[in-house]
């Protein structure tokens, strides 16, 4: 069964250059681009107005993440600088700038206290933002570039994806690595835990989305249909749907129940660097996409007859 999502607005050409990363809170969407900083758009207003511009990353910004409450954000710039932001009454301000050597992809724990990150030489690290950014974990892998990372919603697991196709899962409590997951040979570019933590989805240059069971490490499904590198994945809040974006501009929605693609969008031919589900409004779920088109596009599930 297919589903319909309607484009219901966009922030057009909001950045002068590619948008590389998105992060959402209840009321806002943060976007990071190759210009000199971040933009904050309101998602409660149908016009998605720009509410704040945070100029902080001189040579551009490639990752931005927020905690569950939307009170803290962390961004990483191409220059390697890591900035920590705090939100009060909808306005963001920078609280700190730190340098974690060679950090690339990041993930923030639900409570905003712990930041997990990959490094260019394949380390997986965790910093305690509540204790002077102390490094509390440093897992070494086989040295392949850590392209992506995610934390399970309960904070107990970290998963990382690497350029050589490796996918690792670590326990944050023991620091042990229960699984090294097989299945992808080519660079992994995106990785995401399902909301309940039962599944881990990973994808990249092999154009396949692989689903793993996080309790066994077994591969339970592979979703095929993209014909270009997959750059981004996002789970819907219920875990029923998985959203994916690829280098050729395609955006797909996958049903986890039926393991099939239920919607495909191809409004652009330019790379989609990031896709994100938006918080549910009433019964309707929606998502945002962004990338080389330099715009943020918003989609909402078609409801009613």
């Amino acid at each position, binding site marked *: 069964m297919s589903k319909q999502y309607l484009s219901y607005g966009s922030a057009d050409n909001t950045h*002068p250059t590619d948008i590389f990363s998105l992060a959402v809170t209840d009321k806002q969407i943060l976007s990071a681009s190759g210009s000199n900083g971040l933009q904050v758009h309101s998602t409660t207003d149908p016009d998605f107005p720009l509410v704040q511009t945070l100029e902080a990353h001189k040579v551009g910004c*490639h990752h931005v993440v927020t905690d569950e409450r939307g009170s803290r954000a962390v961004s990483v710039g*191409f220059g*390697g600088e890591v900035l920590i932001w705090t939100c009060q009454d909808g306005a963001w301000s920078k609280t700190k700038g730190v340098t974690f050597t060679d950090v690339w992809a990041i993930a923030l724990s639900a409570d905003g206290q712990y930041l997990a990150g990959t490094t260019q030489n394949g380390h997986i690290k965790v910093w305690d933002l509540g204790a002077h950014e102390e490094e509390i974990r440093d897992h070494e892998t086989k040295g392949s570039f850590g392209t992506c990372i995610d934390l399970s919603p309960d904070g107990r697991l970290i998963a990382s994806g690497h350029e050589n196709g490796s996918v690792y899962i670590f326990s944050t409590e023991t620091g042990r690595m229960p699984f090294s997951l097989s299945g992808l040979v080519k660079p992994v570019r995106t990785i995401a835990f399902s909301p309940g933590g039962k599944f881990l989805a990973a994808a990249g*240059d092999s154009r396949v989305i692989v689903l793993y069971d996080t309790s066994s490490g077994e591969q339970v499904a592979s979703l095929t249909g993209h014909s270009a590198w997959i750059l981004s994945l996002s789970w819907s809040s219920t875990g029923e749907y998985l959203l994916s974006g690829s*280098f050729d501009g395609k955006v797909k929605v996958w049903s986890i129940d039926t393991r099939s693609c239920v919607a495909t969008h191809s409004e652009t031919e330019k790379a989609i660097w990031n896709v994100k589900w938006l918080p549910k409004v009433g019964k309707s779920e929606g998502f945002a996409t962004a990338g080389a088109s330099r715009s943020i596009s918003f989609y909402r599930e078609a409801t009613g007859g």
Partner: protein
Amino acid sequence: MDASLDHGHHTASQASALNVRPENPRAAVRQYVGETLAALVEQVCIPDGEGKPKITIKRRHTTAISSYRINISTGALESDNAETEVTYIWPGKDAYEAWRFSITLRVLTAIAEAFDSGVVVSKRDIYYSDPAAFESQQVVDTLVDDLAYTIGVSRFDLNVEAAAKGLVTGFYQVTTTTGERIDARLLTNDCLIPRVQDISRLDISDVDWVLILEKEAVFRRLTRSNFHIRARAGMGLIVTVTLTSSFKPDMRVLTTQQGKGYPDLGTRSFVRKIYDSIPSSRSHNLPPIYALVDSDPDGIAIMSTYKYGSMAHTRENSSLVIPSLRWLGLRTTDVVEDGEEALNGDDLMPLTPRDRKKIVAMLSRNPVLAVDGLEPEWRVELQRMMMLNVKAETEIRYGRDGGLEGWIDREMGRRASI
């Protein structure tokens, strides 16, 4: 006869903490050149031929295998080697010494001229100023290095560059300052680019496009296929820098930029000459100047050097820039967009840590790559390289649809119609 007494006297000594670079190398050069030439004039002025003009230089022992180390305070590569002092006196006791004296003086005056006028000359320029006298390029190269060593400075402090390395093939004619005409339209082989100072007129009125290449290998391929007369866009002019060298690289000045297609001043001057010759040659349909470089940070930096000048030698940039230079390729994103089917396993390579550092340094330092800079597309391409962690070489096009030539035809056609 003891060979070591052939000319002048030798003092061999082991220089331990050798050649501490003077704090002000330019002052050191000025002082050495000034004092040496003044002493020569003084001797020449002594009446009745009683004067003994002489030049003393220090030479490194090239036979000893040297050990290299990093100077912790300067971070520079250093080596221990024995040095020899040689004095050439005019007229000397034999023809050999007279020759050594005269060519040393010639190199010294060439350096003095370059130094005074603030122009950088190449070793090749010096050699070609009188090939018969110097006998070989190697002689000039060694002398320049010996003089730099004697003064205790680097070759760059002397305003001397390595041998010029530009190559050109194409539908052009040159009239030299001596009245000689070179009609390259009839040549099928490439040639070293002529010295701009020797060109009185560059005729490119039949040229429809100009292509600057980073890679000599790509240049060779296009020349072999006569692309400059077969391209769909018409008659062309192809320029590159050669990495082939008839002499050993000079370890002391071996930088990361060498061997990567960065243009020397001679090549840049010639391309600028082409650029300057365009408006006068045509009233409409001005031939575009394209750059085809690898999709990696060096490729972008090389293109930036042609278009905006070198970050190392900023002084000459203003007279050498090519403002109309267009980026033909290679873009990583285009390569990726060709689709997985077109990709071979090793077509795309991961960036090295050096590549990533270089990209960050370029984005931070090169003003044309700033957020409000002149080249937003270069900026975002460098960022996309970082995001994807891949790079690609121009040669990737060889095996694809229509080969490299077909691809260039399509790209030039597409860009011309924009």
